């Protein structure tokens, strides 16, 4: 038995320890690492929903930022304090100015708005294939951005909206992330998900089997946009400021990049990719400001960490096209498998784990013996 198949190991590495870190983060609101963990959680939502489109249904959308923007703005309309709405957003209808909803409800409304836009756009755009779809979704970002920048009375123009209440705290983010993951996990394992994968692997064959390809594509695109809207709402309330320029190419590219790094064919890939893309650039950023290594003062090199990440992405694509995770869905399966939780409290499973580790060690020792 391999280590990664052992339920106790799966529990602690994929559920127990992450959960502890998240709980600790919940009690340290406002800290630097808490912020990183929050960003990580939001990335999981965004990347997983992108993987649903790009990995499981064989389309290639790059328009995630547009749906995030819609989710963020619409949810902000429902959570902003009334006086801010009156002074900065005079174009809103009166009922909307006076209304105040709890965050999760506002987020849901934002997601629904994003989904509706995706439904409309999907009918036009999803008939195109491959690259044409990518470009059309890129176009969507530009269109949304210019609406946001120019409809001053309801978006406050390019200045953006500031003063969003900080509802996106760690527990909200991870609550949403787990719910989203669970829904996606169930979707992919349902008949619907199988049909999607059939469309991805062979569109013509899928159509011959009686699958209505366009309908499924539009549905899945809308579903992905729904979660992207939720992610965007969380993002906006985490940063407490939203404006068109945050939801532009850079954002979309970063999400696409994260999804490719982690692995586009699995949901676990979105977790690993987000982990990688949130924390590694942070550790690289000291390099930019001129780090001192072994007494040698490196010069200031602005842009170096992005440079390294881009180079890494090229190398990764060349040598491991399927992403870091590849095709293994172990992480997400562990999180939602009852066996894993049962194993955490049964001594028998711990004994098995010890057995595996012991056998690994002995094998390691033998190898050393052989070499010498």
């Amino acid at each position, binding site marked *: 038995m391999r280590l990664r198949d052992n339920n106790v190991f799966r529990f602690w590495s994929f559920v127990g320890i992450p959960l502890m870190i998240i709980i600790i983060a919940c009690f340290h609101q406002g800290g630097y690492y808490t912020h990183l963990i929050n960003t990580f959680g939001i990335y999981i939502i965004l990347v997983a929903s992108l993987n649903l489109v790009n990995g499981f249904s064989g389309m290639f959308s790059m328009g995630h930022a547009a749906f995030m923007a819609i989710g963020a703005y619409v949810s902000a309309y429902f959570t902003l304090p009334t006086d801010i709405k009156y002074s900065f957003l005079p174009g809103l209808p009166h009922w909307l100015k006076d209304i105040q909803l709890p965050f999760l409800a506002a987020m849901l409304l934002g997601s629904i708005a994003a989904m509706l836009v995706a439904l409309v756009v999907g009918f036009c755009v999803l008939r195109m294939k491959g690259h044409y779809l990518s470009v059309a979704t*890129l176009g969507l970002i530009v269109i949304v951005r210019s609406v946001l920048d120019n409809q001053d009375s309801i978006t406050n123009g390019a200045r953006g909206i500031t003063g969003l209440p900080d509802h996106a705290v760690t527990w909200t983010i991870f609550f949403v992330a787990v719910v989203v993951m669970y829904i996606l996990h169930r979707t992919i394992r349902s008949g619907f998900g199988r049909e999607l994968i059939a469309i991805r692997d062979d569109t013509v064959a899928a159509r011959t089997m009686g699958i209505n390809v366009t309908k499924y594509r539009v549905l899945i695109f809308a579903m992905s946009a729904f979660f992207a809207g939720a992610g965007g709402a969380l993002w906006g309330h985490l940063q407490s400021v939203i404006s068109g320029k945050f939801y532009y190419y850079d954002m979309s590219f970063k999400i696409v990049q994260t999804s490719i790094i982690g692995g586009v064919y699995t949901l676990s890939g979105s977790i690993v990719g987000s982990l990688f893309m949130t924390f590694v650039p942070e550790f690289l950023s000291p390099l930019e400001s001129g780090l001192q290594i072994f007494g040698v003062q490196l010069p200031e090199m602005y842009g170096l960490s992005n440079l390294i990440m881009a180079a890494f992405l090229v190398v990764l694509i060349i040598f491991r096209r399927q992403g870091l995770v590849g095709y293994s869905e172990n992480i997400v399966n562990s999180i939602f498998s009852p066996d894993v939780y049962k194993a955490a409290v049964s001594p028998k499973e711990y004994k098995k784990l010890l057995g595996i580790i012991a056998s690994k060690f002995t094998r390691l020792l033998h190898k050393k013996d052989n070499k010498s």
Partner: protein
Amino acid sequence: MSIEYIISQLINGLRLGSVYAMVAIGYSIVYGILRLINFAHGDILTVGAYTALTLMVAFGYPLWLVIILSIIISVAMGLLIERVAYRPLRNAREETTLVSSLAVSAFLQNLITMVFSEQRKAFQLPDWLTEIHTYGIVKLSTMNIIIFATTIFLLIFLSIIMKKTRIGMAMRACSDNQRAAALMGININVVVAVAFMIGSALAGLAGIMLAGEYKTVDPAMGFAPGLKAFVAAVLGGIGSLGGAVLGGFILGIAEMAFAGLLPTSITPYRDAMVFVLLILVLLVKPNGILGSDEGGRS
């Protein structure tokens, strides 16, 4: 709205369009052969502009030498990118190479930021280029005339290469059917390298022109024109030279028309209009205006 105004907007459109057309040709040739949207193509344009800037300011070379050297460096950069980032991915899915090109684009942008700093830098072409000539109601700068002439000359030149020479035939064969072409003894690597050479040379030249037009350079300057040039290539029918040029001119004129002739309340939406136009054209003609039948809609 006077007739002079409309004509001057039209000329602006043609000028912008010829820069788009030049970049679009590169996209189109590369896409035709590799089915790759080379997002790094726009950054080759930046490389060309920065090389020209360095050679002019730091070394004080004359303009003709600057242009030749910048084109050579752009071509070298294009070939290097192809060798490092695209050749290992020859058999991968379309989307994989697309992401690779995005990464290369980010790499180049950050490299230029790192070397030259993020600030805009002034870019001054010699005065005789920006001098304005008046022909009746038409006003043109020397630069405009050169840009038009170059674009038209290059289009004719490239069409002849594509139609008459061996390498042109090989390129057309590759974009029709790469495997069959390889079986007929065509060296795919050479064909791809030539495609990248032509594309990068044009992009480098377009970079200098664009920098001269705006009188500044910055590390992200190539991105937006690159994307629009790609839209132009798709609009005209990606894979066809004439389509790229036609798309470039349509896009340039449309953009200027949106900016100059429509009421001012719509003007800020000009970038959005460009994409709406693209989506509409693709819905009616999924392969672009001059595109072939293959590809497009599923």
